[in-house]
């Protein structure tokens, strides 16, 4: 039978991420005005982020005072190597105590940098502290003090490239890179392949990418190519753009991502060997980038999610107000184009972080300002010293004019499409006319339909529901009218994350008054 209800549908899928740089008429429906603690899901939609838990329930021992923050948390040898107050510790997950590996490294002034290598069949990690000679630690936690004659510098930057260990950031030599010979761990002599290179900018960080060592300066970026002292050569990538903080540099999905003064940029590989192109990918969140201070930036990647997280807490700020930018490389289901989508993360205050594989499990950890080491992507709440806190996840769509911003839309129903991994306790809200105070705004509608579908082999007794759709459509009758309407979903529960896939808005078009 023909539909004579005069109700019009407006359907969109959740894709595009957080967008802060568009006017009302330019927004694409799937984009978000607010996307807090929801991450763009590579499976489509926006998924509530996972929580954090203690990697080890014991605080990393302080050296001088309780205010010392953790300046290194590196996953190494299936454990975590941490540094606090000038001492490096190693510890296992759980509740075991932290074991000192190396003490007396000086009072930290910045996060330590590290690079993992294996020259001899044994994993090693080289740590540059900026306050002491670099340390090389093996899987037995033996420490080599990198203090060879002629290179006794307190480097703050380290990277391993073509079997050479490169250092930079020495006090008084901020433009100089020194490197040891191939497979050397304490030998900078030119006779054994060591050497030094200078660039005309203060070096901020180094990163290996596509057979080259990228040297990020304060206002320039260089690329070092070659395989040994005899053919190492430096060419500029750009002489106008630099990197704000070495903590922002990560490799993600075939690109190097870093924070430049004008936003998050990528050094992307091209189809031509050894060729790269420089791109800016954060214009849609430039407003947020402008808020980023360089107080202490740290970042990590979550490979299975094609996700880059850049944390930029203020040292004096509260944990609950600390922010991060989530960036995901994914295909926009609305446009079909591969690109970066963004979201805000709120409520975690990392001081330093790392992600790597422990066994076959990708693990992301961060060291806190409070001295604890936390596991990310763990649980459904944020773990803090004082207890746990529910994650407040907020999604807000653009103000949808649905074709004609001059026509009043009397909303009848919202059909929400999402996937869930457990019970759902979220709130759906409609905001009319750009949240106008002169337009009645309805109360929230509970969004709690959704049992855990019982899937053969994974369903569990008393938890999963037989014959439950794994992609439920929740039909919610709604009230109110306006010329534009925005959808808002708030999930502040401690339940497993939901992933918002899309919405259908059903409305009756009205007049122009």
């Amino acid at each position: 039978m023909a539909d004579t209800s005069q109700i019009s549908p407006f359907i969109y899928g959740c894709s595009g991420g957080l967008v802060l740089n568009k006017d009302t008429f330019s927004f694409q429906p799937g984009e978000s005005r607010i996307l807090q603690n929801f991450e763009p899901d590579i499976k489509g939609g926006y998924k509530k982020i996972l929580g954090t838990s203690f990697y080890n329930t014991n605080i990393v021992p302080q050296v001088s005072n309780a205010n010392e923050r953790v300046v290194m948390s590196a996953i190494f040898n299936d454990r975590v190597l941490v540094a606090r107050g000038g001492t490096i510790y190693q510890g296992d997950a759980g509740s075991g105590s932290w074991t000192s590996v190396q003490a007396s490294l000086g009072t930290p002034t910045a996060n330590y940098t590290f690079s993992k290598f294996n020259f001899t069949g044994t994993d090693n990690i080289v740590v540059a502290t900026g306050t002491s000679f670099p340390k090389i630690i093996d899987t037995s936690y033996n420490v080599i003090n990198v203090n060879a004659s002629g290179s006794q510098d307190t480097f703050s930057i380290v990277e391993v490239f073509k079997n050479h260990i490169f250092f930079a950031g020495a006090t008084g030599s901020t433009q100089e890179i020194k490197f040891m010979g191939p497979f050397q761990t304490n030998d900078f002599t030119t006779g054994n392949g060591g050497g030094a290179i200078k660039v005309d900018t203060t070096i901020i960080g180094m990163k290996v990418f596509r057979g080259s060592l990228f040297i990020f300066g304060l206002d320039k970026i260089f690329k070092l190519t070659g395989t040994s002292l005899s053919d190492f050569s430096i060419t500029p990538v750009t002489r106008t753009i630099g990197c704000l903080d070495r903590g922002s540099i990560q490799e993600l999905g075939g690109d190097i991502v870093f924070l430049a003064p004008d936003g998050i940029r990528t050094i992307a590989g091209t189809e031509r060997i050894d060729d790269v192109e420089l791109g800016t990918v954060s214009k849609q969140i430039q407003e947020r980038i402008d808020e980023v201070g360089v107080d202490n930036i740290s970042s990590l990647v979550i490979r299975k999610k094609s996700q880059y997280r850049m944390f930029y807490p203020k040292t004096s700020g509260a944990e609950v107000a600390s922010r991060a930018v989530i960036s995901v490389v994914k295909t926009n289901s609305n446009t079909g184009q591969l690109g970066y989508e963004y979201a805000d993360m709120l409520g975690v205050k990392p001081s330093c972080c790392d992600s790597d594989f422990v066994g076959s499990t990708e693990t992301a950890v961060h060291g806190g300002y409070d001295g604890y080491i936390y596991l990310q992507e763990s649980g459904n709440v944020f773990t803090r010293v004082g207890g746990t806190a529910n994650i407040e996840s907020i999604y807000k769509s653009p103000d949808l004019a649905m074709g004609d911003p001059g026509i009043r839309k009397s909303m009848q129903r919202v059909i929400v499409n999402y996937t869930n991994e457990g019970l759902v306790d979220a709130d759906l809200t409609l905001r009319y006319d750009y949240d106008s105070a002169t337009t009645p705004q309805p109360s929230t509608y509970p969004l709690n339909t959704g049992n855990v579908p019982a899937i053969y082999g994974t369903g569990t007794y008393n938890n999963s529901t037989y014959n439950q759709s794994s992609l439920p459509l929740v039909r919610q009758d709604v009230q109110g009218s306006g010329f534009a309407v925005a959808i808002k979903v708030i999930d502040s529960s401690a339940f497993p994350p939901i992933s918002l896939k899309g919405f259908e808005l059903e409305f009756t078009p009205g007049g122009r008054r």
Partner: protein
Amino acid sequence: MNYLTLTNQVLAELNEVQLTSSNFVSGAVGIQQTTKDVVNKALRDVYSSELEWPWLHSDKIQATFAGQKEYALPTDYRSVDYDSFYIVPTELVTNSTFDSNITNWTTSSGTPAYTATGNGRLRLNAAAAYATLSTVKNKEYRLQVRLIDSSSSGSSLKIQVGTSPAGTQNLSTTLTIADFGDGSILDIKFTATASTSYLTLDNDDSNNLDVDFVKVSENIAPKKLTYITYDDYRRRFLSTAQINSSDQYGVPDYIYKSQDGKFGLYRIPDSDGYSINYEYWKTHDDLSATTDTPDIPARFHDVVIARTKYYIYQLRSDPQFTQFAAADYQAGIKRMRIELINSPTQMLDTRVNITKTRGAAIGG
């Protein structure tokens, strides 16, 4: 439905966000505030669609003043039934029926009490109470008392009128119930001898005697006042009424409507002791507070809702639903007229027929 629920009913039918008792008065915005306003507009439409809606009916008792010919109509009147004017003697007893208390009655002895039995009574058990009456010396008054002997004791109620409490200068009689279970009514006259008289009811026995009502008024026969037009009044009586002589005063016979919102009497009253009783239809007050309820019977509140929707749809430029709402409203008003206005199928022929008595009824 009250103001809140009426408004919310409209909002619900429009699928708009409803109000609550906490935000109704000062938190309504946009369409909510408009709907609130339009509910009152719709109510005014319903009220104005007919002059004599039963729920707007009211009675008025206007005391006359000797020598004053015109009296103001009530400030809230919208229509007056000029065929309803009667002149009756003024009731002199304040709280003559003891509906809810025995105030204005003064204890003379014992402890007079109020009993809610029946429709409210004065109970005397070894007690006496008196009321003060404003009377005119040498005028005759009618006294009516209804008594119930609730103890079936056979005790007598003393009824006394005098110039002082318990005085008997003007009247002293008793009333005794013989047929227990039934009340007895005393009708008696007395002539006042002072400008203030005291009516005393006294039961000396320790048994319950319940007084249902006590009525005292001047011995004047009530009569209907005949309505004449103002032109008629001017043509026939105005010149006489303007003579500066009390000879023109008397018991009024006619009522007319002045041109300035008053009614007039002819003859001009010669006494303060008359009461003019009449009926009128009042105006209404807009709803304001959350719990204000319109006078319209609840079963017709849908008509108000239909009218409100009519205006809202008009505002929203929705001609189709405006027409639907208008049709609903018109049908509702028609239904109200049928139920509330239509009178029995009988009419009065008021034409002058010199061969027949005026007022013959024509059955329908």
